[in-house]
């Protein structure tokens, strides 16, 4: 009767509250990291914070409606400005250090990184 359903990654991380806790830390890291900050120089902060939140929700395995095509369209202008694998690696690294700062266990961080990794081809428009 009591079938055990293991909680989703999103729930294990703490759901929407975890995204809220992570978004400022992550976005601050992105904006202050010289390797990637120049991609965010001239963006509207409100809109950008909303985008970071959507990205984190997706990477946390939460509810989202991103498609590969959206990813491509959303990053095409950055690819045109030179966005490459190195920048992508930096973002994944900053995502990992954000979660570490929030004391998320390493195996869960690895799962988040794997989800982020699965978007690489779309983000880089390959």
């Amino acid at each position, binding site marked *: 009767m009591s079938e055990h359903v293991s909680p989703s990654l999103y729930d294990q991380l703490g759901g929407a509250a975890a995204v809220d806790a992570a*978004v*400022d830390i992550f*976005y*601050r890291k992105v*904006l*202050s990291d010289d390797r990637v900050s120049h991609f965010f120089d001239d963006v*509207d*902060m409100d809109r950008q*914070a909303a985008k970071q939140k959507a990205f984190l929700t997706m990477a946390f395995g939460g509810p989202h409606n991103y498609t590969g095509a959206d990813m491509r369209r959303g990053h095409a202008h950055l690819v045109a400005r030179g966005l490459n694998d190195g920048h992508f690696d930096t973002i994944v690294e900053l995502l990992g250090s954000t979660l570490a700062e929030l004391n998320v266990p390493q195996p869960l961080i690895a799962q988040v990184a794997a989800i982020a990794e699965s978007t690489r081809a779309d983000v880089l428009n390959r």
Partner: protein
Amino acid sequence: MPSITFDGRDCEVLPGETVLDCLLRSGIAVPHSCKAGACQSCLMKAGSAAGLADAQAGLKDTLRAQGYFLACSLRPLEDLAVALPGGEVRTAARITGLEALNETVLRVRLRTEEPFAYFAGQYLSLVREDGLARSYSLASLPNEGDLELHVRRIPGGAMSEWLHREAPEGNTVWLQGPAGNCFYVPGKPEEPLLLVGTGTGLAPLYGIVRDALAQGHTGPIWLFHGALTPSGLYLTQELQQLAERYPNLRYVRAALRDGGADGVENGELDACIRARLPKLAGFKAYVCGDPALVNSLRKKLFLAGVASKAIYADAFLPSALPVASACT
């Protein structure tokens, strides 16, 4: 192609065109200013309220429910009947006072017959009788009776030159709004507050700071006012007196040029802030004024530790260029 019906006329929408641009192109005068969804001058009402959500950002729930939307933010995909807002969202006001606060800033006082509810620091759309509309922030407190705006003279500016040059005291104008999230929210009296404004960006802050103090705010309140030169500052005596009366209020003035004397700092506003407040975690911040400065400051404040949700900003976007009129 979809078409827009306005006052018995049909206007065909070009691909990607907004309701506002379509109507203006068709020679229909719709009040507007920023064309960026910020000033709410272009408020209109649609016959049916379906599919409007994206064009209703920032509108009050009561307006949304009635099908109001921002004409500059809606790109219609199907036929739509629209109308200009009627008396129910506009309040008539009389210009009761005009007073120079410095060489370029005019204090405009307005009196409404009907009550006009707002929070100090919100902005309204001032609509002249001929439909010219511009947004201005409220510097007054709701219990003060008259509304107060601070209007900077923009050379060649349609609204600001009219107010400065023709001194239309006694004229009737229309007010739409209020709008915006830059206002004091009681409930955390000990929270540290940071208020940063350039030029007439002081207007909303002058309302917010007095509102916070009147509501018994006990935590530190830092008010930074910046201008190009010291002559661009204003209300300095009033604010100095306020700071003397309330020890938790710190008032800092800065000029980009020619500062360094008479209590005016010389230099960039964000450097002045950093020198006094290197760490801003836990602060609530209000940033108002010049759009470029507002955007760069809010990022700097965020990096200095203010939570993104604790930054309230009003960028004083200028009016957008008119589109060529080609009546169909």
